């Protein structure tokens, strides 16, 4: 994602943002619609009602006028009852300064004074006003011929309630629409983001080491573009990595021939070591040390490049772990330290690659000798479902911050800086980690007593990569060169689960 300035709302996830946007959009739209609807409806209903009120008031006014004109002293009560009224409407009549009303609740004072004045002066008028907190409308019609004025007061409470219910309904609808907008936004963003989830899963898998992982190119043209560019990126990445790996491998292989000549010639010189003058002898010793180191580094590099190209194979043998540890420690020159095999794992046989475990031990012993004053204890200990090789040294302890990094390639901790001539290739511990990983095990360093380091190699009873080499028919380099096909009996050894740890 491109970098943006600090915007708090960006802290929300894309999905939440889309949801919020949808909800706000729906809210704005529905609120506008509701408001428009409300006012249009209100105007229309009010207009209808006013028209009806006016019509009724004029009809009643003309009825009152004809009644008043018909007799000299008309019966006002009868006049009122002859009027055509609706529930909630009340009539008020003024004649010769006297006020009459159909209800006790209304009278002269119920009618706003300004309207009263206007009508009594001969101008018909209408007015909205509030009486006892409820909306009312009054229509005043002067009846000059009868020297009277007719007023009719209509209650608008019903209308107000109708409008209130309408407003309520519209608000409810707006809220529902907003919620629906949010849900739609959530759904749409989830759906739109689903391919992203797949991309992220694929990226995870690639990061996990499965570089061949690719996305399926979807039918959707938008998504297939994403999948295609993702896959192109993965291809490019893989190509780059394999080019680098190939380069390492090629360089290492190219170096092997001259190194063979160097090592062999050196062997010849060494055989004549004692015949050389002292200075030449010293020079030869230096040469020997450096070429040995060169050879070790190259071996390690080749090993690493084999791991990187995935061509590293376990040559599994059914071996006594304690015995293997003893042999490996001897071979690594840690002969002074007895190998302490826990009785619980004595005689335990596991399927292991002897050469690799020997390298693991040798590298740990070398590491201890170079950085921590040598091995102080070498033990084989039981662990749940696994066996541990523990190599302890005199310290100084590896700082916590470096404990993982020391297993990286060419990583040299602070301790490394103190030493003059190191014989390590800088790959030793990383190879330990790789060899152990091939066996499905783990390696780590922890604090021992008093500042010492404990390098712990944990090997599971079940080596993950079983059924290698011994059972794999070898593809011969030249076709049809083998005398006969391999058969089932060629399978000589199979890994077997050790019978418990003690």
């Amino acid at each position, binding site marked *: 994602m491109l970098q943006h300035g600090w915007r708090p709302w960006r802290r929300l996830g894309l999905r939440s943002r889309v949801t919020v946007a949808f909800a706000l959009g729906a809210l704005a739209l529905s609120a506008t619609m509701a408001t428009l609807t409300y006012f249009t409806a209100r105007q229309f209903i009010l207009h209808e009602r006013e028209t009806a009120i006016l019509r009724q008031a004029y009809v009643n006014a003309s009825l009152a006028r004809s009644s008043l004109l018909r007799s000299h002293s008309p019966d006002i009560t009868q006049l009122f009852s002859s009027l055509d009224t609706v529930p909630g409407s009340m009539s008020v009549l003024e004649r010769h300064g006297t006020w009459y009303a159909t209800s006790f609740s209304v009278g002269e004072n119920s009618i706003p004074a300004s309207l009263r004045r206007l009508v009594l002066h001969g101008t018909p008028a209408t007015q909205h006003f509030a009486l006892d907190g409820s909306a009312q409308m009054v229509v005043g019609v002067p009846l000059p011929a009868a020297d009277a004025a007719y007023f009719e007061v209509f209650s608008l409470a019903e209308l107000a309630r109708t409008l209130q219910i309408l407003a309520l309904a519209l608000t409810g609808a707006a809220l529902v629409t907003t919620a629906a907008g949010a849900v739609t936004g959530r759904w749409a963003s989830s759906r739109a983001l689903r391919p992203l989830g797949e991309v992220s899963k694929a990226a995870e898998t690639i990061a996990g080491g499965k570089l061949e992982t690719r996305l399926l190119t979807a039918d959707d043209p938008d998504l297939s573009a994403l999948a295609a560019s993702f896959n192109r990126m993965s291809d490019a990445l893989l190509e780059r990595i394999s080019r680098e790996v190939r380069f390492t491998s090629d360089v290492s*292989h190219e170096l*092997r*021939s*001259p*190194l*063979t*000549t*160097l*090592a*062999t*010639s050196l*062997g*010849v010189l060494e*055989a*004549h070591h004692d015949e050389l003058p002292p200075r030449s002898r010293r020079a030869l010793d230096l040469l020997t040390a450096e070429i040995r180191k060169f*050879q070790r580094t*190259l071996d390690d590099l*080749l090993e690493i490049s*084999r791991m990187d190209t995935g*061509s*590293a*194979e376990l*040559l599994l*043998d*059914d071996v006594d772990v304690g015995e*293997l540890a003893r*042999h490996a420690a001897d*071979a690594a020159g840690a002969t002074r330290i007895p190998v302490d095999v826990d009785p619980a794992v004595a005689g335990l046989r596991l399927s292991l690659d*002897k*050469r690799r475990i*020997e390298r693991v031990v040798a590298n740990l012993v070398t590491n201890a000798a170079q950085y921590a004053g040598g091995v102080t204890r070498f033990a084989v200990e039981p662990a749940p479902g696994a066996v541990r090789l523990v190599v302890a040294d005199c310290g100084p302890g590896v700082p916590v911050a470096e404990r993982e990094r020391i297993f990286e390639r060419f990583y040299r901790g602070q301790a490394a800086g103190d030493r003059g001539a190191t014989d390590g290739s800088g790959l030793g511990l990383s190879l330990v980690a790789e060899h152990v990983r091939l066996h499905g095990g783990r390696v780590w360093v922890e604090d021992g007593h008093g500042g010492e380091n404990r390098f712990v190699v944990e090997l599971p009873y079940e080596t993950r990569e079983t059924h290698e*080499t*011994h059972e794999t028919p*070898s*593809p*011969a*380099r*030249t076709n049809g*060169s*083998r*005398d*006969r096909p*391999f*058969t*089932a*009996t*060629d*399978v*000589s*050894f*199979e890994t*077997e689960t050790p019978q418990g740890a003690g």
Partner: protein
Amino acid sequence: MSSRILLVEDDERIRASTRLALEDEGYEVEEAGSGEVALNRFSEQAADVVLLDLMLPGIDGFECCRLLRRTSAVPVIMVTARTDTHDVIAGLEAGADDYVTKPFVAKELTARIKALLRRARSTGGPSALSFGDIEVRPDEGTVLRKGNEVHCTRTEFRLLCELAANAGKVLSREQLLDRVWGYDYFGDGRLVDVHVRRLRTKIEADPGNPRHVMTVRGMGYKLAI
């Protein structure tokens, strides 16, 4: 008389330095820069040990080894680039007795040569022994199957003798590596596996269903009489 080594290697400098190292150890060294030259030299004068690089121009080490094997049981040590490729197995399948990995240490190489030569000379063990239609004559260094001689390499023969001397007993791969190849603890078990395979093709009626050289899973091999 010093032993003759045929050194087959296309890299001139490696050849020259290896020659120096081997001559220092008292061997007589014959050089060949290609498989074709090696086969010619060998047919002119047999060597006691052939040191064969697998990566050769022209006919490669595998083919060269197979062609050598048609006429000779001479011990062959192949020189491979890597230990864990199929090259090792393919080379052993082609008839090599042992292998060293480049860059090799001269001492390691001469140790392997010595072990092979020792093996080639000493044929102690039980006197004549027979099982099924197989007859082993350690003193003559021959194996007969139905009265006809079976052509075994020295290593195959040693392996058979070792198994026969312990007939009915299981020998682990470590034991066989130690007794037949003179390897210490870290020998490559594939040497045993491939040689057992090769031996079976020669002495078993049905190599895919062996009756004599039996695999004991997880333990090793034994000779069933």
